[in-house]
């Protein structure tokens, strides 16, 4: 029997940790990436990586609290067993990265320094300046290079993943990849294929994502039958620097280190911001959310910034929407030590030193909570069975998905500094499961009849030839992409309305037709970036439709998915008794909504269309409860809700545990 191999698509944190773990287990890996893996999008992650730690533990924190913050912040759409396992591994993952040489910031005594991030009251976040993703990625890149020298890893850098190879039984047997320079196609037989390709930000045109984050790898799996979960849950980061080519992230850590968001109380106050006295500044997050202040979860901060600019007309500038993110009260030396990387980015691209002048920022598309549907095996303690080959396997046997392109961990809204953890964790935890998978099979993919692989390559050659041979047309792929980004950004970001979503679906269908006839300026066969882009553009449409349809059908508000027409109301009665009565009705409605909508949206591809269905979410560890950050009447709702939760908890140990912890944020 030929040697069994695994193909990993994508060399960011998830793909690299998977490759490194498989190598340790003695399994050979073919690692495929559009860019040299050291340049993967994980380099853009800035703020840090979360785990419960020795200091927070003594303040009452625990892995369970990390789980609770994650699912509460995610509005209970997270699958709790994998999240529990992730939070349990958190401290171990950070210890490992420390051993690998990550230059985490240190305390005076030499321990890892920690800072606070959104959606928690604990300082859980370890960080390396403000380039934590880069530093973590480099550590994994270095380990994988070591395994490359040992002969266990073959890298295919500057290669595009064209399609998974699926046999007649519907089992994945490898991948077709394409050399971006020679344009040649190659079949890689594999006994498991792991998709670790990150997010689909390019569907929105400009976002905080890198240019290779086009979603094509996930889409190509969807188009051969892989299910896609929770597509409509797209995180819009509250703070980014608007730019012509990209919206550059300004990390949440800026607020974690004391940064304050404000606008002048007088609309478009022309004064130098430093001369505007405190009384004439509106620190709207601090006023509206006295408990979490500037560190409310991202979906909330984003909506407030949007609201202050769009509805209150308080944007700092008249011609473009932005608010101040102010660090100027923090000593320069501290800023340089903890946030240097991001402040340099602002200075470089805006020409202004944010240590002296408040930054101007606005929300931007940032992360996809949704992704390829995958299975898992739940353990008796409520986490994952480590080593189970079901963990992170898609509905296509032998095809796996990890990292940003899976869908379990972040529910309806991801907490800051949880993504680096989920990416590294999924790589590490799924490795042993793949080992189980490989040892269970009696044949190696490389021994299968060569026709399977030849046919797969031929199909991809045919697809490319058909695009190159198109007759000249007035349709330009880059123009279509601009229009796609525009319609997606308008319809499916911060505020969503059904009429706009319907109209966007029609526009997207039109754009898809135009993309099918768009002709290329470059028809050559050497480093043809035109044809690669055109293919990835076409593959954006299934995911774009899944996002829009998912958003259209989900008539509720949950995390990043906000539909004002279906928002739960504030309590309005003037008296406390009146509000308690209202709170009863509010809680009834909340329970109905929970029963209806604590469901994963599952999109499947059907001859060009996306079909939706809904699937239960495992909330067995922490039952859903109202997410009340900042709602008027929160206090009364909390009273009513806690009474109900306590009644229900009789006889249910998990629920009792949840009820015993402070169940609801009071403001």
């Amino acid at each position, binding site marked *: 029997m030929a040697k069994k191999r695994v193909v990993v698509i994508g060399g960011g944190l998830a793909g690299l940790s998977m490759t490194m773990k498989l190598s340790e287990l003695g399994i050979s890996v073919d690692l495929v990436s559009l860019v040299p893996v050291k340049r993967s999008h994980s380099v853009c992650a800035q703020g840090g990586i979360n785990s419960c730690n020795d200091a927070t533990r003594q303040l009452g924190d625990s892995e369970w609290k990390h789980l609770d913050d994650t699912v509460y912040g995610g509005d209970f759409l997270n699958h709790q067993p994998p999240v529990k396992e992730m939070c349990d591994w958190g401290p171990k993952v950070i210890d490992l990265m420390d051993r690998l040489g990550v230059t985490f910031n240190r*305390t005076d*005594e030499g321990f890892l320094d920690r800072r606070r991030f959104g959606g928690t009251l604990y300082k859980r976040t370890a960080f390396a300046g403000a380039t934590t993703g880069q530093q973590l990625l480099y550590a994994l890149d270095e380990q994988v290079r*070591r395994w490359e020298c040992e002969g266990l890893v073959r890298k295919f850098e500057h290669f595009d993943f064209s399609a998974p190879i699926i046999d007649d039984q519907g089992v994945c047997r490898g991948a077709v990849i394409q050399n971006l320079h020679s344009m040649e196609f190659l079949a890689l037989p594999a006994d498991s294929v792991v998709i670790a390709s990150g997010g689909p930000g390019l569907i929105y045109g400009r976002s905080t994502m890198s240019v290779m984050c086009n979603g094509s790898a996930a889409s190509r799996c969807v188009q051969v039958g892989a299910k896609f979960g929770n597509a409509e849950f797209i995180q819009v980061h509250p703070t980014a620097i608007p730019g*012509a080519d990209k919206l550059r992230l300004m990390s949440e850590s800026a607020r974690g280190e004391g940064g304050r968001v404000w606008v002048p109380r007088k609309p478009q106050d022309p004064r130098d911001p430093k001369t505007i006295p405190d009384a004439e500044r509106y620190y709207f997050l601090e006023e509206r959310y006295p408990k979490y202040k500037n560190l409310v979860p991202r979906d909330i901060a984003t909506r407030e910034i949007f609201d202050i600019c769009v509805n209150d007309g308080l944007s700092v500038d008249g011609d473009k929407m932005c608010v101040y993110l102010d660090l100027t009260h923090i000593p320069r030396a501290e800023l340089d030590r903890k946030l240097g990387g991001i402040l340099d980015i602002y200075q470089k*691209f805006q020409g202004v030193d944010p240590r002296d002048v408040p930054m101007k920022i606005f929300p931007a598309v940032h992360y996809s909570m949704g992704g390829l549907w995958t299975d898992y095996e739940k353990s008796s303690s409520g986490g994952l069975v480590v080593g189970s080959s079901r963990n992170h396997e898609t509905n296509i046997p032998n095809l796996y998905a990890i990292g940003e392109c899976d869908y379990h961990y972040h529910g309806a809204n991801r907490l800051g500094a949880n993504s680096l953890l989920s990416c590294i964790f999924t790589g590490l935890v799924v490795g042993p499961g793949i080992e189980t998978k490989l040892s269970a099979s009696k044949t190696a993919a490389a021994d299968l009849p060569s026709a399977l692989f030849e046919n797969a390559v031929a199909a991809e050659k045919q697809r490319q030839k058909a695009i190159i041979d198109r007759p000249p047309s007035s349709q330009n792929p880059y123009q279509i992409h601009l229009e796609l980004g525009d319609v997606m950004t308008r319809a499916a970001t911060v505020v969503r309305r059904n009429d706009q979503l319907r109209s966007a679906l029609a526009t997207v269908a039109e754009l898809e037709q135009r993309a099918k006839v768009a002709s290329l300026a470059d028809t050559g066969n050497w*480093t043809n970036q035109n044809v690669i882009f055109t293919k990835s553009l076409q593959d954006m449409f299934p995911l774009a439709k899944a996002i829009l349809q998912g958003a259209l059908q989900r008539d509720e508000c949950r995390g990043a998915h906000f539909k004002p027409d279906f928002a739960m109301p504030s309590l309005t009665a003037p008296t406390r008794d009146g509000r308690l009565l209202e709170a009863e009705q509010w809680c009834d409605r909340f329970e109905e909504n929970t029963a209806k909508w604590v469901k994963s949206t599952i999109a499947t591809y059907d001859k060009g269309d996306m079909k939706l269905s809904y699937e239960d979410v495992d909330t067995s560890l922490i039952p859903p409860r109202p997410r009340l950050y900042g709602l008027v009447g929160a206090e009364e709702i909390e009273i009513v809700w806690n009474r109900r939760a306590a009644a229900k908890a009789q006889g249910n140990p998990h629920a009792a545990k949840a009820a015993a912890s402070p169940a609801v944020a009071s403001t």
Partner: protein
Amino acid sequence: MIASAKPSMIKIRVKRQDGPGQSSYWQNFDIPYEDNLNIISVLQKIAANPKTRDGKTVAPVAWDCGCLEEVCGACTMVINGRVRQSCSALIDRLLEDAPSGEIVLEPMSKFPVVRDLVVDRARVFQSLKKVKAWVSVDGYYDMGPGPKQSRAQQEAAYPLSECMSCGCCMEACPQFTKVEVERKAGESEEEYQKRAAEAYNVAFVGPHAINQAVLFNNNPTGQFAKAERLDALMEPGGIQVCGNAQNCVAVCPKHIPLTTSIAQAGRAVTVHAIKKFFE
């Protein structure tokens, strides 16, 4: 600050090459001026509408890019004679410095051209293999935290580890010369890569790899393999090739103290060589 008279058109001159081993040629493009453009957005506009100044439709210019915020290192090229990342090369700033209004884009000259502005930087990563730029941990099981480190140690290591392998220091280094391994007819990709790696291994490793060797030699666990890294720096293409021109540190976009690293490595290699002599 921003030049008072903004041009209506931005004049772009691009050095093009259709493939490895082919001769290069120049093309001119005019892009309507907009505020706040960078080289990436200009190249995107050329890709969307690849017409030269004289109205001829040509193949779009090929170039590499990734993060667009100067942390991935992909988009390095030579802009108006200076090697740098094209994402952080802002048009308004370039126009201030080049009053002629022309912006000249060339591929890096020390790496083989793949096409247009795309170059093959496999040698950069090969040099990281040569100096064993990693911490040789026993494995990835939970073994508790790494050794404690002082804040001073972290603050010394962090700038060195910000290196994104972009190639600027190598482009600027007079001792770092181009190595281009031509493909042979009928040769497989693997055979070619093996041959290229052998050629890269005896050529100068460059400031980038020396800096990485220092980073790992200073790491509390990484130092256990210090001797192997110093051995590598004593081989052909090692630190002795450095002519101390100090161009590397001047062009590094991350302001990494490359010459300090080189000096540190130089001393360590000397001590190591003397020790070996007496062994």
